[in-house]
């Protein structure tokens, strides 16, 4: 266990109690929302695919804690956590997966297509790769517009062997774009182990090959993630170019709801990672350092439970979109 002082040192930030509790709160919000989505999926209330973020919460929360509202995020098929961390209201995430008109994509998107440009969530994608390039492009816009905004692309280990990674990172590097590339290395792409997809499983190290900064952190340590993100964001805002941040983490649920979770990884491995749960770890740390006490955590837990229950109610009570709108908004004039 770290002492409070150590925590501050570790991040290089002034993380006061409120901020530390906010990180905990955000992670818990994601966890509880995902658990509810999983239950709703099992009940048949959510159609289509549903990839949860359980186990990886520290990454989205740690990174987004260092972003401004007008910074932008481009995310993946596993994007609920990024959406929530960037500030999409839980009601809108829940309603979207329920296919309701009140969802953040008005029911057009579902789990893999969350859009909330109002808070800088520029979309999640069902295709592996494109968000890396789009994040690069947002960086290009910000550069051209001479504002100090920053763009973040989240992606999995499954994306790093794809051409989009190679092309996108190289472009950002040669033009010093204000982009933060966050690889959530959770060791598997669906059921394919990262080690079977490449001989170079050190993602952060690849940054050097592009001439950009590269950092690897424990993706289950929200403070480590936040510290690395802080540095990368500072670099980007200062015009000093992009960063590749590898967060080593694990998803503790199956690839998608309804899928098996055996055959490709052992129960022991899963259990091992469950013991490194990022939320429990932060809680223990803050308790251990005396930063917060059980009562305070209980209050946060209750608050989150209420928020998720409210989101569920909101989603359930919301109307479906009007079928007559099925072809609206294909073009800007319609």
């Amino acid at each position, binding site marked *: 266990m770290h002492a409070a002082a150590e925590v501050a040192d570790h991040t290089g930030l002034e993380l006061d109690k409120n901020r530390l509790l906010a990180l905990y709160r955000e992670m818990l919000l994601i966890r509880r929302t995902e658990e509810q989505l999983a239950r709703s999926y099992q009940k048949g209330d959510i*159609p*289509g*695919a549903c990839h949860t973020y359980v186990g990886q919460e520290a990454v989205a929360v740690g990174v987004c804690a260092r972003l401004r509202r007008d910074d932008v995020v481009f995310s993946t098929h596993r994007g609920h956590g990024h959406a929530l961390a960037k500030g999409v209201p839980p009601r809108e995430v829940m309603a979207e997966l329920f*296919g*309701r*008109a009140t*969802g953040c*994509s008005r*029911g*057009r*998107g*579902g789990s*893999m*297509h969350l859009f909330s440009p109002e808070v800088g969530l520029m979309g999640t*994608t*069902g*295709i*592996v*790769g494109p968000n890396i390039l789009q994040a690069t492009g947002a960086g290009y816009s910000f550069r051209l517009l001479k504002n100090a905004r920053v763009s973040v692309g989240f992606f999995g280990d*499954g*994306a790093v*062997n*794809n*051409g989009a990674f190679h092309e996108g990172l190289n472009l950002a590097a040669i033009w010093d774009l204000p982009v933060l590339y966050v690889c959530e290395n959770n060791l598997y*792409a*669906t*059921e*394919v182990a990262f080690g*079977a*997809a*490449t001989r170079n499983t050190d993602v952060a190290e690849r940054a050097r090959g592009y001439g950009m900064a590269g950092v690897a952190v424990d993706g289950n340590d929200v403070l480590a993630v936040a510290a690395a993100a802080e540095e990368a964001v500072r670099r980007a805002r200062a015009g000093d170019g992009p960063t590749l941040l590898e967060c080593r983490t694990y998803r503790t649920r199956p690839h998608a709801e309804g899928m098996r979770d055996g*055959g*490709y990884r052992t129960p022991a491995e899963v259990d091992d990672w469950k013991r490194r749960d990022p939320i429990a770890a932060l809680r223990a740390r803050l308790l251990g350092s005396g930063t917060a006490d059980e009562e305070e955590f209980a209050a946060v837990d209750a608050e989150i439970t209420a928020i998720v229950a409210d989101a569920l109610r909101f989603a359930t009570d919301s109307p*479906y*979109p*009007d*079928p*007559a*709108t*099925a*072809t609206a908004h*294909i073009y800007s004039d319609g």
Partner: protein
Amino acid sequence: MRELSFTVAAREGLAEEMARDETVFVVGEGIGERGGNFNTTVGLYELYGPERLRDTPIVERGFVGMCTGAAMTGTRPVVDFMFLDFILDAMGELINQTAKIQYMSSGRLTMPIVLRGCIGIGGASATHHSGNYYPIFAHLPGFRVALPSTPRDAKGLLKTAIRSDDPVLFLEHKSLLNTKGPVPDADADELIPFGRAAVRRAGGDVTVVALCLMVNRTLEAAADLAHDGIAVEVIDPRTVAPLDVDTILESVRKTGRLLIVDEDFAPAGIGAEISAQVTERAFDELDAPIRRLNGLQTPVPYSPPLEAALVPTRERIAAAIRDLVAE
């Protein structure tokens, strides 16, 4: 005859061809030990191992280009895209390389490659997992495109595809995968030829050409209309490249009326091509304008009521047929 599901029938076809020819191999994400996201390869890894059931990283362009090179050098790749949507990152390879190398080499190289993937709207799959895209491959030279609607055709067309020396797209509608139907015994070794349409139901009042899943829906609509005395002839082209227009013309000469039902977008689609060809070749035999019933031209939304608004249903097909007969 045995009753098999579409997926099992197609898999049997693949298994037979892999047993027959050891140069056949499969690449894709999760098609090894896992047996494929859509169970396309279940049981084959145990028989043929990782070199012939090759799990890949997420590099659609990469493995399509790789398989193009493999097909040029003595092996017969089957690329399993899982969802056909993922083929789009490989379009440069497919259009400029895979489809052109036989021609550019004056036939001195062949291109025995199968590109299979699941297509279609349904199940709230949303916009990145609902694509059809077959008109693109019918428009461009160099491809064959199979769109089976029955388990028997799935097996027989896949076997033909694997034995073909041309690039073949073999497309399976997700909503057909669990449908069942008769399939000849394994030792029948039935190959369904490309470019030969099937008349699924005979009728003298109106011709309906339906593609893929729409064949089933149209047959249901035709059954409904039979109660009202409307005799619908239902034609399933089975491949859209080559496209068997002769069988369609034969029917239209009899009925004088033609409707084309296609889940995919209308503009510059397969229905447009059929309409144009029939107009060119049987203009004087048409008693009414050729009609098309297509899915709406839009990205596919997720929410079930929006999604349902897109696609021709049994009822909408029946209504379109009724309208056409009344013209």
